């Protein structure tokens, strides 16, 4: 078995990045749960991030500004049932946000555990 053909660490760090970005979106939603006219946001699903291969601008001069690595953190508004919208025009459903928060936390733990196990696997080959 060739471990190098399994891009596990690559995918693992991409997933961790994506989960962190999602956590930021959830934090923004929860913080703005009582802000008038605020619309709940989320980021695009991880499968979409994996499928897309964003073209990045090459930084050939020190004066070039570096753009965020990928579109992983791009926010988009969530479609919400109009009946869920409060009188002040806020569309954050705090229960849904708490569920998302749990999902993110669980996935993050699993992701880092898998990476740890793989790392130990590689180390055991060295011993």
């Amino acid at each position, binding site marked *: 078995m060739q471990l190098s053909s399994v891009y596990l660490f690559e995918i693992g760090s991409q997933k*961790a*990045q994506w*989960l*962190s*970005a999602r*956590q*930021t979106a*959830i*934090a*923004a939603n*929860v*913080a*703005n*749960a*009582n*802000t*008038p006219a*605020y619309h709940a*946001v989320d980021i695009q699903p991880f499968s979409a991030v994996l499928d897309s291969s964003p073209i990045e601008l090459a930084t050939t001069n020190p004066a070039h500004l570096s753009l*965020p*690595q990928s579109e992983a*953190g791009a926010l988009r508004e969530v479609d919400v049932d109009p009946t869920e919208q409060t009188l002040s025009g806020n569309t954050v459903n*705090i229960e849904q*946000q*708490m569920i998302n*928060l749990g999902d*993110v*936390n669980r996935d*993050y*733990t699993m992701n*880092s555990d898998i*990476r*740890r196990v793989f*790392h*130990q696997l590689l*180390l055991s080959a060295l011993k």
Partner: protein
Amino acid sequence: MQDSLQTALRIAASGLQAQSTRLRIVSQNIANAQSTGSMPGADPYSRQTVSFESEMDRTLGANVVNVKSIGVDSSPFKLEHDPGNPAADEGGMVKMPNVDVLTELADMREANRSYEANLQVAKQSADMLNTTISLMKDA
């Protein structure tokens, strides 16, 4: 670009701050629910309101929440008949604050709930950071 998890922590902190300001206003309103004026016919305490706004934090690159304004509720005062009160006018009527304790309590519950939600986000973000750090342990 800053670490997303730390950004999440900062956003949650802004939420905690906003909600605690709201709680402060609520407690101020409840404490002053019976505060009349000191002169005959004087206006009593006016209920204060707080409103939030979502603001783009440039250094963070994310939407944090801020207290937009602390306003004064302009609804009319309640009139009570109490000739013994120093604030009573010639007819013995006293202007009472336009604070409805029930409304304030409902507001307090909502602020409490939002505060807890923000706290949960902060805790989980810190947990996730620790998970990453613990990858370096016993490797």
